[in-house]
């Protein structure tokens, strides 16, 4: 195990710098320890649980050649717990690599990963943490996300958008990008409002105010349960309202509520994969599960091919998201617009 750690310490920086690690030693000592920091309890535990299903599904579906062990740490979406988690996984569990599930966690874990020279792969759209060496993110470019959705809305003839977004990292980025890009696609933001998750459960007054501005479509960006509450209350006021979002309808446990609406989603067009997931868990593939699956698959691919350049590994990676590209230390893929059936 010591040899493995030593070799990884020598090799991972080279991979991180996208240089060929010719002296690299194949991982022959098993298992490779992969530390995973997720919110498994608390408000965002639904996300953590969806991701855990995705991670667990990798072994069953891909049956990877590399022997690995996943070690979970529940950070309850707390910065201080995430910092402790990174240290515990690195120092006590001696993990070889780290995976994180949220932007906040990735930002906190980045420093510990850099100090310990442990490769860390997050899934955050906010890629500020990748300024630090050893830290990578695998997520669509946030401008691409907004562009894909706006382009589709333009094609469908929508002109006026009511933008209601939560006061949190991802929704904030969505709001900024949509506001900046909407004029390019000939669209107007006729109403804009922020909501603070957990502050209230009654958005009816806000939604009536939005309606007075006659939007063609409502772009609602929040995570459950707010997204479900907002949508339900909007449908009470305006049963035929057209709504859209980035991913959140697919993260919600109430996908039926969004029938015939469209939403940005990851581009998982692999039917066989979707069916296998449904068969195992008795439910449709959730966005966070798919993301976690792709994240772990890529990490295993990197570990298996550590003698290759990262750009080559990315290029040849057979992701469920289709083609991946490397932009600095951000691994990108393109999302798609999906109509919910």
């Amino acid at each position: 195990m010591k040899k493995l750690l030593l070799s990884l310490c020598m090799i991972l920086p080279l991979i991180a710098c996208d240089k060929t690690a010719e002296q690299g030693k194949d991982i022959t000592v098993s298992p490779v320890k992969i530390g995973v920091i997720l919110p498994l309890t608390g408000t965002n535990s639904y996300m953590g649980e969806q991701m855990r299903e995705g991670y667990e599904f990798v072994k069953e579906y891909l049956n990877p050649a590399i022997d690995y062990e996943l070690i979970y740490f529940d950070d309850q979406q707390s910065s201080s717990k995430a910092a402790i988690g990174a240290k515990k996984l690195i120092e006590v569990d001696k993990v070889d690599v780290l995976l994180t599930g949220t932007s906040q966690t990735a930002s906190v874990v980045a420093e510990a990963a850099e100090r310990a020279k442990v490769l860390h792969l997050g899934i955050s759209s906010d890629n500020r943490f990748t300024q630090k060496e050893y830290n990578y993110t695998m997520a669509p470019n946030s401008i691409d996300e907004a562009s894909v959705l706006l382009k589709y809305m333009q094609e469908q003839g929508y002109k006026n958008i009511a933008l209601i977004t939560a006061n949190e990292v991802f929704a904030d980025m969505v709001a900024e990008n949509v506001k900046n890009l909407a004029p390019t696609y000939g669209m107007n933001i006729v109403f804009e409002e922020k909501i603070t998750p957990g502050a209230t459960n009654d958005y009816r007054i806000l939604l009536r105010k939005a309606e007075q501005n006659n939007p063609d479509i409502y772009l609602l960006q929040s995570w459950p349960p707010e997204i479900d509450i907002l949508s339900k209350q909007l449908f009470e006021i305006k049963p035929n309202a057209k709504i859209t979002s980035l991913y959140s309808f697919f993260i919600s446990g109430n996908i039926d509520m969004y029938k015939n609406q469209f939403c940005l989603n990851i581009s998982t067009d692999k039917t066989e994969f979707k069916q296998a997931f449904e068969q195992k868990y008795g439910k449709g593939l959730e966005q966070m599960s798919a993301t976690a699956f792709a994240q772990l698959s890529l990490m295993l691919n990197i570990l298996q091919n550590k003698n290759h350049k990262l750009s080559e590994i990315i290029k040849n990676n057979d992701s469920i998201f289709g083609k991946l590209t490397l932009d600095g230390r951000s691994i990108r893929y393109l999302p798609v617009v999906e109509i919910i059936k």
Partner: protein
Amino acid sequence: MEYLINLAILFSIYSMLALSLNMVIGMSGLVSLAQAAFYGIGAYATAIGMTKLGLGFFGTIFLGILINVVIALVVGKILARFQYDYYAIVSAGLSVIVFSVLLNWKSVTNGALGIYGIGKPNIAGYSFYSNSAFLGLTVAFAIIIYILYLWIDRSSFGRVLKALREDEKLTQSMGYKTKHYKSFIFTLSAALSGIAGSFFASYIAFIDPSTFQLKEGIFLFTIIVVGGLSSALGSVVGALVLISLPEVLRFIGLPYETAAQLQQIIYGAMLLLMMILKPQGLFGKYRM
């Protein structure tokens, strides 16, 4: 070892917070839930000071103290009119207001995106970048606050605070202007919480408003209730118990599918049991 050092850093930071809160709640009987607000202001003063204003860590500590003192003086004057539950409700309001400001004043705080890349302290070319050096500095500040607590506790000023905790009207009848005492201890506590916030920001290197919500204030309140009200030792032991207990539980061999949830249940049950067996806390001198 690094893991333990990191736990010790967090323990020191929470000890500072618990000691400062116990000055208000334990020593003076003022149920304040505003601590998370001052903690957050201190943390943001350091984050903004170091990343945007180019200040050094110690300069940002003073900045945090200054801002907290100004806010606490104003709010303390208002709070001094209240007692008991009303004090708790109004102070909780401050916590909510500060959280909203941190979340929405984007040009300064960067909103929900938070502030990334906060540096480590540096004195005359010596950097506290290593965790052990940072721990040394944090413990030194925690000890200073501990000594300050004991000094106030044993001073005539501290005795007046305890008197107003027991009976404010009686204390007033003896000629003490209790409003000034309440306002002063609230301001001092706010300043000390700001120091803890500065250390937290520098330690964690990334902060966002979610850390400084009302629930953090309630967590701090739990620390001093478990450790013991009106006790410096209780504040420190309370912080030790509540920071280390969840970590100890991680080493129990629970089935991994439900380990996180079971840990929470065991943690809650242990706290409940502790409160049943020791309602005044582990080292409490005063019971609410």
